[in-house]
């Protein structure tokens, strides 16, 4: 079963076509990079797949469920982390984890186990009862990712998860992503950082609401005869070459 399938998925806002008949498939356990300049339609596409927006036309399935009729099933099977910090700053770290466990309907014993697991993994045991606001940004993002994975979703959507985070923490963050993918979770990630695009199994690049390219990073670099993803992006998204 594919993790995500779309067929001519389109979203219009009045006359403006934000996402123009995009068609792609994402394999189970794949790390799928979703690239594009600001305003290219990435966020709109992602929101349709998460059930936040109803498509104007076209078809899509997430984790085997239809985006028109089975949004409740989709919600139970996906995780989501936005570019904005998605935890509550005025709750403690432990309370945040328990809250998300609670709204995803996990059993209390499971919640307690997972909470202990996350705290240990991120080495946050000593500050578990401190307000989340007191954590540095990098730690917050790692915590937010762990929380998004709490209910073991089949697909997790990450909307620019590493924005504003330092390189070392970004590296650690990607290690967490790899680990999740190796356990079978499909990762659907948007990013601004081209070095991160290199980490993905496959990458799609959106320009003006359409998918202009979709391949492995290696394949893309060969096709466009450049030696970095940045070069590919320059050619496609900006219509210019760095060379």
């Amino acid at each position: 079963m594919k993790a995500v399938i779309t067929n001519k998925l389109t979203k219009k806002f009045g006359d403006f076509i934000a996402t123009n008949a995009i068609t792609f498939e994402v394999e189970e356990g794949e790390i799928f990079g979703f690239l594009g300049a600001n305003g290219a339609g990435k966020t709109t596409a992602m929101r349709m797949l998460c059930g936040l927006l109803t498509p104007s036309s076209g078809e899509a399935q997430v984790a085997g469920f239809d985006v028109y009729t089975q949004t409740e099933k989709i919600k139970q099977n996906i995780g989501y982390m936005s570019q904005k910090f998605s935890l509550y700053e005025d709750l403690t770290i432990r309370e945040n984890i328990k809250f998300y466990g609670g709204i995803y309907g996990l059993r209390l014993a499971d919640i307690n186990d997972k909470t202990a697991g996350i705290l240990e993994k991120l080495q946050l045991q000593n500050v578990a009862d401190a307000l989340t606001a007191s954590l540095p940004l990098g730690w917050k993002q790692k915590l937010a990712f762990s929380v998004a994975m709490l209910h073991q979703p089949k697909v997790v959507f990450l909307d620019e998860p590493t924005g504003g985070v330092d390189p070392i923490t970004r590296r650690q963050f990607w290690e967490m992503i790899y680990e999740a993918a190796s356990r079978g979770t499909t990762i659907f990630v948007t990013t601004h950082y081209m070095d991160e695009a290199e980490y993905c199994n496959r990458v799609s690049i959106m320009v003006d609401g359409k998918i202009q390219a979709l391949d492995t990073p290696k394949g893309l670099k060969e096709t466009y005869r450049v030696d970095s993803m940045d070069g590919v992006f320059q050619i496609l998204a900006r219509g210019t070459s760095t060379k």
Partner: protein
Amino acid sequence: MKRFLAFVKKEFFHILRDRRTLLILFGLPFVQVLLFGFALSNEIKNANIAILDNDKSLHTQQITARLLSSGYFQVYQNLSSYKEIDQTFRKGVIKMVVVFPTQFSYDYEHGRTAQIQIIADASEQNTAISLTNYASAIIQSYTTSVAGSIAPMYIDVNTRMVFNPELKGAFVFVPGVMTLVLLLVSAMMTSVTIAREKEMGTMEVLFVSPLSQWQIILGKVIPYLALSFVNGCVILILGVFLLELPMNGNLLLLLLETLLFIFLALSIGVFISSLTDSQLVAMFASMVIMLLPTIFLSGFIFPIESMPKGLQVISNVIPAKYFIRIVKNIMIKGIGMKAVALDTLVLAAMALFFIGLSIRNLKTHLA
């Protein structure tokens, strides 16, 4: 249900963590009730007056004694000539002068129209009106209490106060304060808390979660429903025990009406937050579209009957108008269900209207 409880629990964390808001929430009713009940009431106690008694008779002494024993007045100065009246006023201490003419008791005892002149400092017009009303009423009561006399004095007092014969300010203000605090807590707080989730980006995460839209909205609303209800009760208790407000009607009915009004205020709050993503806008909108009209157009401070026609029409869409009337009807007049049924119906209709609108708005706006 378990998911929903987890959500409600989180809301309580938000509220309890925010000490400043909490202080405002629970301090507000106290301060407001005390302010409006005592300091800002239009009731006047121990106003300084001067008396110019040119007659110096038994009648004038008895009338003076009655004025003083009412508690509204105290003699600042006894004057001996007309010239002094102006001088004394200019000092700014006295609010009113009572003048008995020389032939007062002669006229009185010979069946002619005896006259008393009351001069009030109208730079504070409301005070002046109240004081002259008090004085007139007291003097009138003297003439009727003197056996056998047929009220020969000419004083044109035509007012008759029902339900609040002593014109107690608290009677007028407490229902208003209660309305205001409930609106403030329920509507403003809810609109701000939902706007905050949108502003922080956590609302998106909630919408992606399996929580339904209803659960999110109700989860936001229920903690404030509880808080507001506690607040309403505090105000009632303060009103009844501290300001000696009567509780003539059915307490249960009053509490039910209070719940209905809180629900309406909450639905307005949800409605406001469905229109905006910013806490600041939500707060400002709550102020402009609720607090100010409530204070000025609901009959809280200014009587609706004395407003220009246009404003009277507008006052019909102010929810507080109906609730204030309900509270007064139940508490002070002690009338029941039937008399408040129409107002109740209006409030319920308003609540349904706003909830309906916001459910339609909330999700589409987020997208």
